Every structure is written in C-alpha cells, then in structure tokens.
C-alpha cells in the first residue's frame, strides 16, 4: 500500500488539469442515456396508475396489442416469481419484490404514477397511443399522504403484511409504521431538567426531489439465446445488473451493462425503474427496446428524499456545554420503505459530544412514490432541527454560535455513533476556518441576517476494482467500474499519473462495463475518489513494481537496486553507471522481458472517514412580502486532500445550492385526491442562476492517514448545513424562529404577520 505522499512532493494531485472527458461534453458528443440508438429499435411507453391507492382487478391489453406497430406488452406477471428477498445492491440492500413493483405494479398500486403496464412499438407516438388503449379495472381505496395521518389507528393501511419492527413485542395488526429505531445513552431526562437553557421545537421538512436534469433512460437488447445487453445512464452499472437480473430471474453472467454518461444522480439513480421493463419487452419482441422517462414521470414515479417531522430538545449549561438531548423523528418514506430514519438518528447529534441523549426514529409509509437516497440521505432533515436548536441556545446565552459549537464539537478519539473512536476528523479546524473567514465579520445591511450551521456525513468505503495497463509507447490506461458524475475520471487519472510519475495527458481513464472490470459498488456515498482512488493507486503501484523488475532485468541488476521516480527507473547500485530507463524504454521491450504490463486491484476499505462542513449564509428578507434573498454564501468544507480542487469546490457549491433550494422553495405538493400537483420544473421550484450569489468555498485539508493521497469523501456533506444556515439567517434577519421548510415567501409572510 503506497504511503501517504507529502503535499510538496506531489506533481499532479492538487493541480487543476482539464478533465479527459471534457471535450466531448462541451461539444455535445458525449452519449447520455437517451442519446444511444440501435438499428431495429422499438420505443417503450408505460401506463401509470391515476389513483394514489387502489387494487388492480384486471388489465386488458388486447386492444393495445392489436394496434399496428405494437410489438410487445408487459405487466408484472412477466416478472418470474423469484424468492430472492433482499439483495446486497445499491446502498443498503434492495428488496427485489418491491423494486419489481416500482417497475410494474403487482396486485395493488400505492402511489399515483406507479407503472401498471408497458408497451413497445415501432415509434414513440404509436407506443403512447397503445398505452391509452390498455384498460385497467381498479378498486379505488382511500389514501393517506401525511406522515402523522398515516400513523393514525384509523389510517388506510397500505401493506397488510407490514408489522412494525423494533417494538418490544411485534404487533399482530398490520400498520403503516415500518419500524421504530432508538439510540440512547446516559440520562437525558435528568440532564434536560438540570439544564440552564433549552433549545427546542418541532421542525418539519417536505419530500424533495434530487432534480437531476437528465431523466432516466435505457436501451435493452435481448439476444436469441437469452443473453442481454443494457446501455443506460445510472450511478452504478453493477447495481443495474444485480437488480435487473434479480427482478427478471437472469444469471448475472448473461447480462452485460454498458454505462453511458449520466446527467446527474445525487442518489436518485442508485436503483432501477426502466431496465427490467425494457428487458421483458425486448425478450418478447426480439428487438432492442429504448425507454426514456418524461420529466413528469420522473417526479411522479422515482424516489424523492423523505419529508420528516423532528421534535428536538437540547439542554445546555449557562457557559455553553451541551448536556442532554431528546429527539423524536418521523420519516415519510413513501409507498415502500426506502430512505428512512436510521441515518437521520445516527447523524442527528454526531457533530457534538453530548453525554446524555435519546433519539427515537419512526419510518412511516404513505401513498407517495417510495423514497430513495438523496445526497447524505436522511441526515439533512435531522441535522436541520439540531442546528436550529443549537442556534437558539446560542442566542439565549448571547454566545457566538461558532464558539458554542467549538466548545462541544467532536475531536479525534471521541466516540462516534458506532462507539468506535473518530479518526483524524477536522471539525475543529473547519469551525476555526469559518470563524476567521472575512465573511463571518462582514457588515450586514437593513433587513439582513447572518446564520451559520454545521453538518457532517459518515461517508463510505465499499468494494471497488481498478485496472492499470501500460501501452507500448509508455502511456497508460486506467479502467474503473464507477460512472463519472462530477469529474471522477480526472481524479482517477491524476492519482495513477502521480504514482506512475507520468504527465496527466499520458494516462487515459475509462469507465468499463460489467463484463470488462471486476465488481465495483456504485458511485455514491461519497466513496468514489476514496475507495476507487485507492484501488487505482494500488494497481498503479503494482505496475511500478513490475516496471522496476523489468528494468532490473534489462540492466542485469538485483531488483532492489532499482528506484522509480518521475516516470523513470534509476539504478541505485553505486558500481553501475547506467542512464535511467523511461517508462517508454521499458514498455517497448515488454515482449522480451515477460509480456504485457498491467495490474487489476480490488479493495474494500472500511476506514472511510467522516467529514464536516460549516456554512455561513447572509439573507435579506422583504418584511412586506416575505421574500428571502440569499445575498452572500460561504461553504467551509473539510476535505482530507483535494485531488482536483475545481471539482471538490464544485461539490461544495452544488450541494450548498441544492440545500438552499430545499430550504427556500422546493417541496412535493399533493392535491386532495393524492395526486402530485407540481410534477414539473415550473412548480417544483429549484434555484435558477438569478436566485443566487457566488458560492464562495474554503477547502480545509487535513489528510486521511490511511489513504495514499489523504482523500476523504466530500460529495454529500455540503447538502447538510444549508437548511439550517438559511433558516438561521432568516431568523437573524426577522427576530423570529422558523421551524418549517420550505421558507417560501407566503410562509415567511404568514409567520411574520402572526398567522399560525
């Protein structure tokens, strides 16, 4: 394992080269999910449930099948009855039957927009026409959307086989409560009773969508012998292979998934919605089938992040020591359990040393699309409540909010949620950097307020495979199994180039398909640069050892007399006066020294390190209209070490703006009969360019000692602090505490004018 190189020695890592896949992306040549075509290709379309909750009595597809140009029709019956339970794909396991129902419903539909049947035809317009000819008989059932309404005794029950887990004794009556999850230590009740001040409140957030601009798309072609190929955009081609094979009952080796470019994912593309359907349609028609979701279908049928209600009480002494905390949080997880409360419970108090705490989480199903991961899934909702409560305590104590956090923030060696001690975390350094940042002391104008908030995420390691091979001209190819969402090809090439001692242009990265590289977990959990980067570094180090061995052979010296630097082998034997051998010299003679030089390494690191963020937000509130305008924003981010600083800054800026959207205007809105009322970018209001100032970033580098380049995960933390940073800044500007997101103008105006 290569040791952690010192920063001054680095020649490529830390610089800002142009990314190797950049030219195709700025010229429109890059091929995304919907850009790929095959000869003889059919177009698929899906019939979706108009009801939020109903039993499917019958599906009659005869008229559709009779329409000229229709080549195949599919329903859930086309999925084999597979007793797979749960498979270890995606993030924390995927339930095969439920994943299948999200592709094609079985006996019941649980949310408006759930797929019921699918058609493949010779043109998109014929497919759309055929879908309208499918007749489905429903028994409409009462529905429920809100989390507390769904928990009530008299609420309509979605799944009659769902019995709440995590209760002292398992109930006999089915309900919408999936599980109760508790984590407790010490005596929080006593600590709160003795506290000098308490920050408390009921904080609520709404379901929000990842908002990737590229709708899901794929092409599937099933051959005559049952083997199949899938071309699609996703966060993990191996995940697509595992879930699709499980749902359609195929051998993994028969299914090859070729990753196309992905137009944004943020956790939303860590599962499948189309591939199993297109596969069945292709098998039935014998022709490739292309399926592309419309924007409306993305909103109605792909997993949003859950809404949540968090009741929080945090007690502190008058000199600002947090002594006790009691939280209860209810997560609205949608039709099937998806992104639930566990990560919310785990992350709620993770920034702080609080001796006494009890955190109870509930997962509750309701008739909206099943939730799925959205960037640090479930942590923003619970840390929002905690960071607002702490802001409240700081105000009650008249204490600087950063100083209050510095008094209680976790340090290396403190116990983490799991009980294992924190490693070289950098929360203190991040807080200090925020306090010294010029933004924190800048003057404010009228109706303006400054809010700060901290946040953290556990990050992930996981399985990754990388291959490095040397070409005869001394250039190198780096292959990994991780789709490149935000510039990871560049960082893979940079790490390989650093180890090989080559300039970046001599090292070209590719993202390999599932039959061309060893298993790799998907791109997500802020893991790619950390785990896949380690596999790349180890593979490159192995190649360097091989190169040194070949040089020794060419010189006829012992291999321990050879040293490698700047892409050259040098002989350290004092008796020898041998000119160095460049990588090209060695590579051009491989046929005489033992054959091609390449190495494939697989890793499964368990030591991903937690990272922290501290954000500073200035907002201006129009007291007459309730409009909130973000006038200045700074994201201070703990990064371990930045491989390509532009893209690390990009993660901080993009995450901050998604958090700002979550805080200000984004929310799923349902009408009276449980239909999504804003399934489009007009009324699902994501931030536009004119809504925002520049997002200043400050990267705090404290390298991870266990990683060859000191890398820590940075992708997800930036979305955590903004919810509270914005809310705290609006409170500072108006003198009123805000508990419910989004802070749309109407809601801020209502709060300022004393309405409920």
């Amino acid at each position, binding site marked *: 394992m290569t040791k952690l190189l010192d920063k001054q020695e680095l020649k490529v890592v830390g610089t*800002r080269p*142009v*990314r190797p*896949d*950049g*030219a195709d*992306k*700025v*010229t*429109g*040549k*890059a*091929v*995304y999910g*919907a*850009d790929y*075509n095959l000869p003889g290709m059919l177009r698929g379309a899906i019939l979706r449930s108009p009801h939020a909750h109903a039993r499917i009595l019958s599906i009659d597809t005869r008229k559709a099948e009779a329409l000229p140009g229709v080549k195949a029709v599919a329903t859930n019956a086309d999925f084999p009855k597979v007793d797979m339970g749960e498979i270890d794909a995606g993030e924390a396991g995927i339930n095969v039957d439920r994943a299948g129902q999200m592709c094609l419903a079985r006996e019941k539909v649980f949310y408006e927009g759930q797929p019921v049947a699918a058609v493949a035809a010779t043109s998109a*317009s014929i497919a759309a026409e055929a879908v309208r000819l499918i007749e489905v008989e429903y028994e409409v059932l009462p529905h429920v959307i809100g989390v507390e309404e769904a928990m009530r005794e008299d609420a309509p029950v979605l799944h009659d086989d769902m019995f709440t887990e995590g209760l002292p004794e398992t109930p006999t009556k089915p309900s919408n409560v999936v599980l109760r999850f508790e984590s407790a230590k010490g005596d929080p009740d006593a600590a709160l009773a003795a506290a000098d001040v308490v920050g408390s409140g009921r904080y609520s957030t709404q379901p929000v969508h*990842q*908002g*990737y*601009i*590229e*709708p899901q798309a794929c092409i599937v072609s099933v051959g005559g012998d049952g083997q199949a190929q899938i071309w699609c955009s996703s966060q993990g081609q191996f995940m697509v292979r595992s879930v699709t094979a499980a749902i359609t009952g195929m051998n993994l080796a028969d299914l090859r998934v070729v990753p196309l*470019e*992905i*137009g*944004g*994912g*943020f956790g939303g593309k860590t599962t499948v919605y189309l591939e199993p359907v297109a596969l069945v349609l292709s098998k039935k028609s014998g022709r490739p089938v292309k399926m*592309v979701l*419309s*924007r409306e279908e993305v909103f109605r049928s792909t997993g949003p992040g859950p809404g949540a209600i968090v009741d929080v009480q945090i007690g502190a002494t008058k000199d600002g020591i947090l002594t006790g905390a009691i939280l209860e949080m209810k997560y609205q997880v949608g039709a099937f359990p998806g992104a639930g409360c566990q990560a919310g419970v785990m992350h709620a108090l993770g920034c702080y040393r609080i001796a006494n705490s009890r955190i109870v989480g509930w997962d509750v199903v309701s008739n909206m699309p099943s939730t799925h991961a959205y960037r640090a899934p479930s942590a923003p909702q619970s840390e929002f409540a905690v960071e607002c409560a702490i802001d409240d305590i700081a105000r009650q104590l008249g204490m600087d909010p950063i100083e209050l956090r510095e008094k209680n923030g976790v340090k290396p060696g403190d116990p983490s949620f799991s009980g294992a001690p924190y490693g070289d975390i950098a929360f203190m350094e991040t807080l200090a950097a925020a306090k010294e940042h010029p933004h924190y002391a800048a003057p404010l104008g009228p109706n303006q307020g400054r809010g700060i908030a901290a946040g953290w995420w556990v990050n992930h390691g996981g399985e990754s495979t990388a291959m490095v091979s040397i070409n005869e001209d001394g250039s190198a190819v780096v292959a990994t199994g991780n789709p490149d*969402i*935000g*510039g990871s090809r560049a960082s893979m090439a940079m790490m390989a180039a650093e180890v090989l001692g080559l300039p970046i242009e001599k090292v070209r990265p590719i993202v390999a398909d599932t039959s061309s590289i060893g298993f790799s977990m998907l791109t997500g959990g802020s893991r790619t640069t950390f785990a896949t980067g380690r596999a790349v570094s180890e593979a490159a180090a192995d190649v360097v050892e091989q190169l040194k061995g070949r040089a020794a052979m060419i010189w006829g010296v012992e291999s321990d007399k050879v040293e490698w630097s700047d892409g050259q082998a040098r002989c350290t034997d004092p008796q020898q006066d041998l000119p160095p051998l460049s990588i090209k010299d060695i590579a051009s003679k491989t046929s005489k020294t033992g054959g091609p030089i390449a190495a494939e390494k697989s890793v499964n690191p368990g030591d991903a390190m937690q990272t922290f963020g501290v954000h500073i937000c200035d907002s201006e509130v129009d007291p007459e209209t309730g409009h909130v305008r973000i006038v200045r924003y700074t994201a201070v981010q703990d990064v371990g070490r930045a491989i*390509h600083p*532009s*893209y690390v*800054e*990009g993660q901080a*800026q*993009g*995450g*901050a*703006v*998604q958090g700002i959207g979550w805080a200000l205007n984004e929310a799923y809105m349902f009408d009276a009969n449980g239909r999504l009322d804003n399934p*489009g*970018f*007009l009324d699902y209001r*994501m*931030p*536009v*360019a*004119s809504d*925002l100032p*520049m*997002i200043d970033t400050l990267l705090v580098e404290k390298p991870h000692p266990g990683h060859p380049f000191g890398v820590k995960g940075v992708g997800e933390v930036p979305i955590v602090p903004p919810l509270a940073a914005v809310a705290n800044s609006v409170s500072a500007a108006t003198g009123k505490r805000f508990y419910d997101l989004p802070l749309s103008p109407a809601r801020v105006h209502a709060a300022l004018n004393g309405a409920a």
Partner: protein
Amino acid sequence: MKKQYVSTIVNGDPADFLCEPQTSLLNALRDELGMTGSKEGCGSGDCGACSVILDGKLVCSCLVLATEAEGKRVETIEGMAQEGRLHPLQEKFLDVGALQCGFCTPGVLIAAKALLDRNPDPSEEETRYWLAGNLCRCTGYDKIIRAVLEAAAELRQERAPA
C-alpha cells in the same frame, strides 16, 4: 399520419428531414438528423437543456415545431467549435470546471454564446438573469457564471485594437 418534408440549414449545412406535424424541432434534430447534443430535460421550456439558436434567436427547441424551421438557420452545440477548434466559451468551461455531469452544458453554452453575441460585456447580474432559463443541478451556477464572464473578457481583448 402523413409526414412533412422540411429543409433547413443546420450549423451552416443544408439539412432536410421528414417529420410528423407535431414533432418538435428538438426531436427532429435528435431522431431524424442524429444530432443528440441538444438534450430534453423537461419538454416544457422550463430547463433550457434543448436551447438552440433559430435565425439568430435563442430558443427552446422543444417548444418549436420542426415544420416551423422550414427555410430557417439552426445553430446547435455541434456547430459551436469551428474546424475542430473549441469556441473560447467551451475552452473556458473546461479550464474552470464549469460543468460536472455535463447534461445542461450544451444548452448553457449555446445560451452564453447568444448572450455574448449580443452583449460582449455583460455584468454578473445580466449573465445570471440571461441564464435563468438554463437549469443546472450540479454546479450551483458559480463556476458557470465565472467562466462566461472570463470568456467575455478574453473575447473583448481579442477584438480590442492591438
């Protein structure tokens, strides 16, 4: 459904195709002419990923009927680089890292080009309001705005008398 014959000029070259009357210009470019650089993010004019320049005007090609392009000039992302040399905006986007997933990038670049063709020295605010029709979910817009302003400055230098 009888298809209509449409003849246009795309990126300076004549381009003819057959399409149904309700086919959008975006789908004609992508499915009939195989030019998949312009993207569909919403199909309702709310995201700008399908931006093209039609007879000198920046438009959403998903909200234009393909038949309306008869006899008109269409400029798409595929035509932005000249003789294989990237346009200064394309160059600058790569230099500063103004794209991550890259899906909105074609639409943003076409819109930025339309802006600089009209106003070679836009302020940050003018640039932000001009690009408000181009949604981006990855970058938070910061590096996009910086790239457009820097490219504008360089283009002004080039044009300024030596």
